[in-house]
């Protein structure tokens, strides 16, 4: 059979390998021919391997002492000749199918001695020691969807089997979520948040799946605080921490939204906003309001600026990819009760049959665009980017690229205002806090 391009890049065919090995043996010993020995085992029908150096022994046990308040994949603890070690069911940990077992049935256990911990993992069957050469091991590949690529050291073919080599150190090692990102020389934050706490992990997944809210360094600080409160309350009531549905996810997120979102800003919000801007502004002031929704932030910001700096020429570009929301923005009509007196007394709105609408003078200032692309924004250099509570609802990689775009599209000394509970740190941003509100100033490029 004609070898395909893929095949030529893979490890050589068995016969070729044998030939190569013999030739190598005749030549000087080279590092790549190092033998790698692993314990081969199977989990839910697939073959895995763990470095034999990590495996202390093999055991067959059926009874574990149950420990309450642990994750569902922790079966309990076991007394191994005086040492109490946790027993983990890897199948449950990776959400693989597990056949129903009668309690007390003997399980196949690999006792692992890792850098920081000794523990046992339950597997389906243990196939013994297998040797491969390290050059036969291919880089990690999410070849199967079930296991996160982070946990895979590599893939190797041996005989007619394909083994996924697990990086057990990474699976069982703590890595604290980054609550205090490195300042100064750090680049714009990584988008990934690592956590060992399985409960928190489920909450993060629940937020993403049920509320389209993605936890990243932008919002992790608030999320952690909220999680602690949430967990405490749920534990007290005896309910699981995990979300039962979308309502739970939304309930979790109460308190995240910035004050004044979804409505025209009241006096407190307006003065907080002014506090984040320079005390004197003149000439032309360009605002980019990304994710403007129905337009509340854009209108509030524009009117506040016009009121505080009458001679200032303000221009605002507001965009959103949600047509239903933004379609009503240019002709936004609100009932009297929803309009703070500032807007009325300032003459920014006027009454119509159906409610209050912004005057043509105000509407001329804000251009609302239905768009999902940021290409136009390549042209605008903004003095202020207003993007409250929108970044957190993007997938992590999009959050990262949006923040990078913000950095590019701001004039030096330009300002970025995110949601009250969103943060950004990294090279090129200076954080300024004023009465609990934050603004990020684009630093001038170093000469």
């Amino acid at each position, binding site marked *: 059979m004609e070898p395909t391009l893929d095949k030529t890049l893979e490890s050589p065919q068995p016969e070729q390998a044998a030939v190569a090995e013999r030739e190598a043996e005749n030549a000087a010993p080279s590092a790549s021919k190092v033998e790698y020995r692993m314990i081969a085992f199977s989990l839910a029908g697939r073959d895995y391997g763990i470095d034999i150096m990590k495996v202390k022994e093999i055991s067959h046990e059926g009874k574990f002492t149950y420990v309450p308040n642990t994750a569902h994949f922790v079966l309990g603890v076991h007394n191994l000749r005086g040492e109490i070690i946790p027993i983990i069911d890897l199948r449950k940990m990776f959400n693989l199918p597990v056949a129903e077992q009668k309690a007390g049935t003997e399980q196949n256990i690999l006792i692992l001695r890792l850098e920081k911990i000794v523990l046992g993992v339950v597997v389906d069957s243990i196939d013994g020691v297998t040797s491969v050469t390290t050059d036969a091991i291919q880089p990690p590949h999410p070849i199967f969807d079930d296991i996160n690529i982070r946990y895979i050291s590599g893939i190797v073919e041996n005989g007619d089997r394909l083994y996924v080599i697990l990086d057990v150190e990474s699976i069982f090692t703590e890595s604290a979520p980054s609550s205090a990102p490195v300042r100064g020389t750090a680049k714009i934050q990584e988008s990934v948040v690592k956590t060992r706490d399985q409960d928190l992990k489920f909450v993060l997944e629940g937020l993403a799946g049920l509320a389209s809210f993605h936890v990243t360094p932008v919002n992790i600080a608030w999320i952690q605080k909220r999680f602690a409160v949430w967990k405490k309350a749920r534990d007290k009531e005896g309910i699981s921490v995990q979300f039962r549905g979308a309502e739970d996810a939304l309930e979790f997120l109460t308190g995240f939204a910035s004050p004044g979102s979804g409505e025209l800003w009241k006096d407190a919000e307006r003065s907080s906003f002014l506090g984040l801007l320079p005390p004197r502004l003149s000439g032309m002031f360009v605002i980019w309001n990304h994710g403007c929704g129905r337009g509340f932030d854009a209108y509030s910001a524009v009117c506040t600026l016009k009121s505080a700096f009458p001679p200032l020429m303000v221009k605002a570009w507001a965009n959103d*990819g949600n*047509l239903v929301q*933004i*379609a009503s*923005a*240019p002709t936004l009509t609100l009932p009297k009760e929803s309009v703070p007196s500032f807007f009325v007394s300032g003459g920014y709105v006027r009454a119509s049959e159906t409610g209050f609408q912004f005057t043509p003078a105000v509407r001329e200032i804000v*251009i*609302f*665009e*239905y*768009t*999902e*692309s940021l*290409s*136009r924004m390549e*042209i*605008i250099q903004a003095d202020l980017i207003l993007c409250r509570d929108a970044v957190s609802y993007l997938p992590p990689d999009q959050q990262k690229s949006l923040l990078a775009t913000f950095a590019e599209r701001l004039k030096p000394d330009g300002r970025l205002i995110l949601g009250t509970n969103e943060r950004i740190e990294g090279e090129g941003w200076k954080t300024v806090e004023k009465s609990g509100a934050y603004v990020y100033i684009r630093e001038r490029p170093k000469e």
Partner: protein
Amino acid sequence: MRVEYINPFVESAFNVLKEVLDTELTRGELFLKSSSQPVLGVAAIIGFTGDVQGRILFDMDEKTALSIASAMNGETLSTMDDLAKATITELANMITARAVTKLSEQGFKFDITPPAIFTGKDMEITNTQIESLIVPIQMPLGKLEINVAVREQM
């Protein structure tokens, strides 16, 4: 695309098609497209100039184009000859002109170029600079996609 521009195009298409073809119409959900798009077979294009730049494209397969042209001429046309092309072009013109009139009443100045029509298989119209708003329209005669890409001159 600027929000105020959307409705005039959508309404205009709806109204003109109803008037000219006297047929049932349903409008599909609007969406945005930002990659290059293969054309269904017959495309009538009208450009915008002045305070804005961009174009509007009326996209349909040949069968639909012939059905529409036949209906508008009161006789069956079986090939995309000059008359059929002129008919589709005129339809595009009317829809665009009405939208532009409406926009002009709202204070937005759009100038339009004379229409052009392209027919052929496997055509691709590329625009990487401007996002398009797609208005899908379904009629018993067939499906028509109106593709508007317009933005302010900066």
